[in-house]
């Protein structure tokens, strides 16, 4: 099972991250790619592949393939825009790793960029588009079920109905992420958060409160994926040992529970098997959790607790600083920043490198995930600073 790593993440770069409108998505992407190339210690011209990911609700033109010209890149051996909703950043890294392993390319830049905050529109409105859930065309917008928040409120409400979770359980997720954020210089929300503060936060889509929701920013994050042999000689290496995806085929029918049986367990199983590890080996988990309930469900699907036990696991303090399973150690999407698939993966790279500063935890095996749509698209990566996991 455990063999050679597939590839390595050899560069990580950021644009400025901001709550104010400013640079275009295209410019943010270029800033991040340049920063990632410099971080990898090699000139921009050594990049021979470029994968792009924009927000699924933005048009293609916001981040077109011609970004390669903005960057002044020469001939490329790989160039594509990847669209797998919130699982796209994981997918980009997976496809880059496969291309490198197969010899198609040697150094691929993968970049996500988004600017949901504009002069006239706040981020809540930007994301208030209807997600298809029922299968009846346009039905969700017709009944006013607009935005990601109600789609995830459905997950939280169903979880409460089946497993008796309380508002405090969701609050404990938000508080744990805030505690981590307070240790991360790049995080946006760092004021101490009490349960009273959480319970007093206004309802967005009950049972979801404002403080259950992601905190969007404008910005970009880029990753350079390169060959294993090169990684060993460069920065603290970040080896990719496992990769998996899962796209739910669970029907909204009868006793099926599409809110929970969503493809994440499949993504995890495949990634764990490829790396030759299991949940018990994971040092920290970096989940794509745009709402607190999604994180609780992810804990279950990735094998850290049984179905229905995720809420109790969180409320027992396991995911917070000092807990048994550090989760979303950068503050996650609720208190760190929300840049879709980039949030969890950049923190996974920072932890794997041992560059987490005050928030650094053990890092032998780091799980990083992506989640798309209303939770029906998933991607997982198993990262490690060790070339061998045996």
């Amino acid at each position, binding site marked *: 099972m455990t063999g050679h790593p597939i590839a390595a993440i050899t560069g990580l770069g950021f644009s400025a991250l901001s709550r104010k409108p400013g640079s275009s998505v295209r410019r943010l992407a270029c800033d991040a790619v340049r920063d990632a190339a410099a971080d990898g210690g090699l000139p921009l011209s050594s990049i021979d592949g470029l994968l792009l990911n924009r927000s699924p609700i933005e048009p293609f033109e916001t981040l077109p393939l011609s970004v390669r010209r903005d960057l002044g890149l020469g001939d490329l051996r790989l160039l594509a825009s990847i669209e797998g909703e919130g699982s796209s950043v994981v997918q980009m890294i997976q496809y880059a790793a496969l291309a490198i392993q197969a010899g198609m390319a040697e150094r691929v830049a993968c970049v996500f960029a988004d600017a949901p905050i504009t002069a006239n529109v706040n981020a809540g409105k930007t994301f*208030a588009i209807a997600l298809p859930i029922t299968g009846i065309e346009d039905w969700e917008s017709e009944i*006013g079920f607009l935005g990601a928040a109600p789609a995830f409120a*459905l997950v939280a409400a*169903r979880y409460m109905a089946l497993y008796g979770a309380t508002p405090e359980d969701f609050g404990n997720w938000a508080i744990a992420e805030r505690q981590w954020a307070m240790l991360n210089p790049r995080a946006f929300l760092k004021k101490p958060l009490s349960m009273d503060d959480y319970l007093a936060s*206004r*309802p967005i889509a*009950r049972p979801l409160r404002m403080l259950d929701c992601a905190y969007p920013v404008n910005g970009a994050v880029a990753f350079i994926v390169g060959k294993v042999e090169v990684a060993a000689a460069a920065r603290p290496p970040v080896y990719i040992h496992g990769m998996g995806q899962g796209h739910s085929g669970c029907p909204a029918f009868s006793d099926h529970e599409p809110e929970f049986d969503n493809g994440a367990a499949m993504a995890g199983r495949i990634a764990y098997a490829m790396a030759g590890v299991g949940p018990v080996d994971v040092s920290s988990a970096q989940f794509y959790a745009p709402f607190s309930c999604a994180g609780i469900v992810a804990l279950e699907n990735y094998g850290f607790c049984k179905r229905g036990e995720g809420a109790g696991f969180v409320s027992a303090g396991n995911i917070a600083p000092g807990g048994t399973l550090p989760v979303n150690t950068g503050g996650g999407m609720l208190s760190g920043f929300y840049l879709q698939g980039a949030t969890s993966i950049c923190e996974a790279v920072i932890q794997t490198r041992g560059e987490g500063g005050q928030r650094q935890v053990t890092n032998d095996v780091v799980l990083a995930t992506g989640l798309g749509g209303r939770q029906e698209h998933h991607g997982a990566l198993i990262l490690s600073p060790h070339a061998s996991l045996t």
Partner: protein
Amino acid sequence: MSNPIATDEPDGFRVGLARGELMVMSCSPCEAVLDYSARYCTVCGSPEIRWRKASGKAELRCVVEMSVSYTLELPAPFLIASVKLEEGPHLLAPYIGFWESAYGGQPVAAQFENGGFHFRSVAA
């Protein structure tokens, strides 16, 4: 309709609602009731899908309160339920009642009142 159902009535769900009937999709050859996202029969593979009247009886799965207004036509707060129809499909629909007293497993029924369609809890 970006992904029409291969039936004589692609929008049969809304056509049914307009005459006060809740419809489900079923396969013409094998008569299996399908979930609303099916475009082929998930049992026999047939593309021949037709609309059939549902009983309107359902089990409540959970309720979400839309707490923020996004459009003038639908001022918040209002409730949306996820229900499991007696025939099998899950459906999201307006719900009349109270968020606090809605619980999973409660029997509910489709009702057509004042030109609107919604679910309400009913005696078991």
